[in-house]
């Protein structure tokens, strides 16, 4: 047993710089052609005894993050710490951020590193050494219809984790199984039934009992009520709260249902496209959300009261693909408070540029030769004009056109253009280097990653 095993530290589960990229295979040779950045650099911690809610829309990576924390899948980079003192977690996070800046392609260290984190970093352990940690963190999944083995009796489903993890004889285990069943509000004669004989709510109770079976400290609740009916949902939420109170468990509640969050969680982390964008104590998040995405999310929840209407903030379009997420702040393409420095890049402006410089469409462009090619080079957009070399006067025309377009509706990408320069027979539109907004602690415990809030001086 590791020394950290016996002590109870403040932070039960902590993630530093966690990333998970899934390869997209394609072609005849099934080579990797792209990476889905499901989780892309997440720092997150759950204090012992609290409920942290992780909210976000489908595809934002919240389920993947949950699986990473439980080490059900290996991370691409980053580490998961378990039962770690708060100061150690903070220093690990700072160190990781520093090294990640220096060396972008950092991988998770394997084996002991001698940096004081070895007893806590479960991602450094080999499978066998990790086994004792397994029982301490358990999941409850969304769909109670596929999360129970249809060929096993309830008693075997519940006994399995006990027999694997705890040194108990079979009769002892069965006694505990009966007790567990009672704890989640089912009858002892339910032991000798198959999962298909139960309703959705009852199955979810069984799934909870199974998660509780090896006496865990941490429960990952992945959308535990979204497949259930309203009246049953309340029952399950009550049960979960009750169990937490009695056993002092720590929850990570993954959900898209903000109403459930308000009722269950102590703290909330909001996720968008593989990143945490805001984190705050529940009450504070609901009363004064900071990130524009959080605001839109909160305003979108329908109000069950016909007399009251909440002003809805409608987000334009769909969530961008996590294969190639927007640069800078990932939310800038849909944000209603977007600014020129939020991370606009050449590709936001490329298609519009062709129209801007077509003389038959835009009479101001008639002094320019015909545009022959638009190419993206990092944060620069290069315009080639046939064979002719553009003059300084023409550069001025382009700059004016860009300024004019920037003033129009939807011209934010053009506002971002820093400079229009003449270079090697072409005109280059320069965008600022895409920086992600820093993680700013606005008030105690309330942090946000958004340029609307004062950024720390680099």
């Amino acid at each position, binding site marked *: 047993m590791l020394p950290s095993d016996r002590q109870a530290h403040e932070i039960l589960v902590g993630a530093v710089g966690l990333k998970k990229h899934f390869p997209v295979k394609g072609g005849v040779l099934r080579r990797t052609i792209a990476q889905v950045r499901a989780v892309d650099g997440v720092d997150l911690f759950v204090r012992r005894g609290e409920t942290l809610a992780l909210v976000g829309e489908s595809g934002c990576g919240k389920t993947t993050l949950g699986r990473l924390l*439980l080490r059900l899948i290996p991370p691409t980079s980053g580490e998961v710490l378990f039962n770690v003192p708060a100061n150690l977690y903070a220093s690990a996070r700072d160190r990781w951020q520093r090294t990640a800046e220096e060396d972008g392609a950092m991988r998770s260290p394997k084996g002991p590193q001698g940096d004081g984190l070895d007893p806590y970093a479960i991602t450094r352990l080999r499978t066998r050494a990790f086994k004792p940690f397994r029982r301490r963190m358990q999941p409850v999944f969304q769909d109670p219809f596929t*999360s129970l083995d249809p060929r096993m009796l309830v008693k075997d489903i519940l006994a399995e984790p006990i027999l694997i993890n705890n040194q108990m004889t079979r*009769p002892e285990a069965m006694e505990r199984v009966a007790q567990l069943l009672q704890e989640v509000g089912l009858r002892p004669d339910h032991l000798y039934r198959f999962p298909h004989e139960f309703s959705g709510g009852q199955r979810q109770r069984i799934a909870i009992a199974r*998660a509780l079976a090896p006496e865990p400290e941490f429960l990952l609740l992945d959308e535990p009520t979204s497949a259930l009916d309203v009246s049953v949902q309340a029952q399950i939420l009550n049960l979960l709260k009750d169990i937490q109170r009695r056993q002092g468990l720590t929850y990570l509640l993954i959900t898209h249902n903000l109403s459930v969050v308000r009722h269950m969680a102590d703290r909330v982390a909001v996720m968008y496209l593989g990143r945490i964008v805001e984190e705050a104590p529940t009450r504070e998040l609901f009363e004064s959300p900071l990130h524009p995405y959080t605001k839109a999310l909160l305003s979108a929840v329908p109000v069950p009261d016909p007399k009251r209407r909440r002003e809805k903030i409608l987000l334009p379009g769909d969530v961008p693909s996590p294969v190639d997420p927007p640069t800078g702040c990932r939310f800038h393409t849909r944000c209603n408070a977007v600014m020129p420095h939020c991370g606009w890049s050449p590709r936001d402006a490329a298609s519009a540029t062709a129209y801007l410089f077509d003389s038959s469409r835009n009479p101001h462009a008639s002094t320019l030769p015909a545009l022959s090619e638009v190419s993206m080079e990092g944060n620069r957009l290069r315009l080639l004009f046939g064979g002719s070399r553009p003059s300084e006067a023409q550069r001025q025309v382009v700059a004016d056109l860009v300024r004019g377009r920037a003033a129009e509706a939807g011209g934010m990408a053009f506002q971002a253009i820093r400079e229009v320069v003449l270079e090697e027979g072409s005109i280059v539109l320069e965008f600022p280097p895409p920086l992600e907004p820093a993680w700013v602690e606005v008030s105690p415990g309330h942090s946000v990653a958004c340029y609307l809030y004062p950024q720390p001086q680099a």
Partner: protein
Amino acid sequence: MGAHVEVRRGIRSASGRAELWRGLRRRLDEYSLTLRLLLKRPLAAAGLLITLLYVGIAIAASFLPDRDVLQTNFTTAYPQPPWWWGNGTPGSWFGTTYPGIDLGMAIFKAIRIDLYYSSIVVLGGAIVGMLVGLVAGYKGGLFDEGLMRSTDVAYSIPFLVFAIAVAYVISRDFTTLNLSLLILWWPPYARLVRSQVLAVKANMFVEAARAAGASDLRIMFRHILPNTLAPVFVQVSLDLGVVIQIFAALIFIGFVPHSGYLPELGALIFYGFGSEPTSYPWTILFPGLALVIFTVGVNLLGDGLRDVLDPRLRR
């Protein structure tokens, strides 16, 4: 105090046995439900009946004396009709066939041999295929790719040609025949099981078992395999009919040399052919019928199983 602990332990172990017993009974209930559902379908019930009848015959036949059927009397060696055929032999239900064998008795014994060897092939193929498919589907990656390509190769080899080639190289006996069939018989099962495994693997209960600390072996054999068995059962029962026919066919064309007498359905038909089947039609009619009835029986059973094991119909 000590006595109290003793007593509690006693209660526990008793309750432990009760628990196992009750669990077993519940499982048996589930199987008997399957059986009841099966029996509700007249065709499937007929198939089951036929299959059981054949199995019964096979078992009973192993108790019959071995060499009592050959007639030493040369005049009676010619096929004799059964008693109900018209000027038939009294006491003989199925007549006799060429070397003077009582056809009823011979078919009984033939069923035993045929069922025995074809079950070895089918069950052996199923077990090997299941293991391969299970590992390939569960592990995935290069291993999976390699296994699946090798099944492709096995798929592309024609059966009869392969069996004959093997016999030519090694020897012409039952063991070789069994082996050569086995080599080609597992790939379809591997495919079947692999596709099932891929579907089952996506279920969250597999993830839950992993989170509970179950080992790969445990997940594979305790969680995934039982959930992939239904289509395998169906395939096994359908395949029994096919393999028994292949056996009969190979022996009919003389794959296994048999001087004199071999109680096997294909061989019996061969004897019938050798002795003017137009004059003695029963000599090929009865062994042929035995073959046909069995094939139809297991097919009916297989189709019935397919319906009954479908979870959508059971709920």
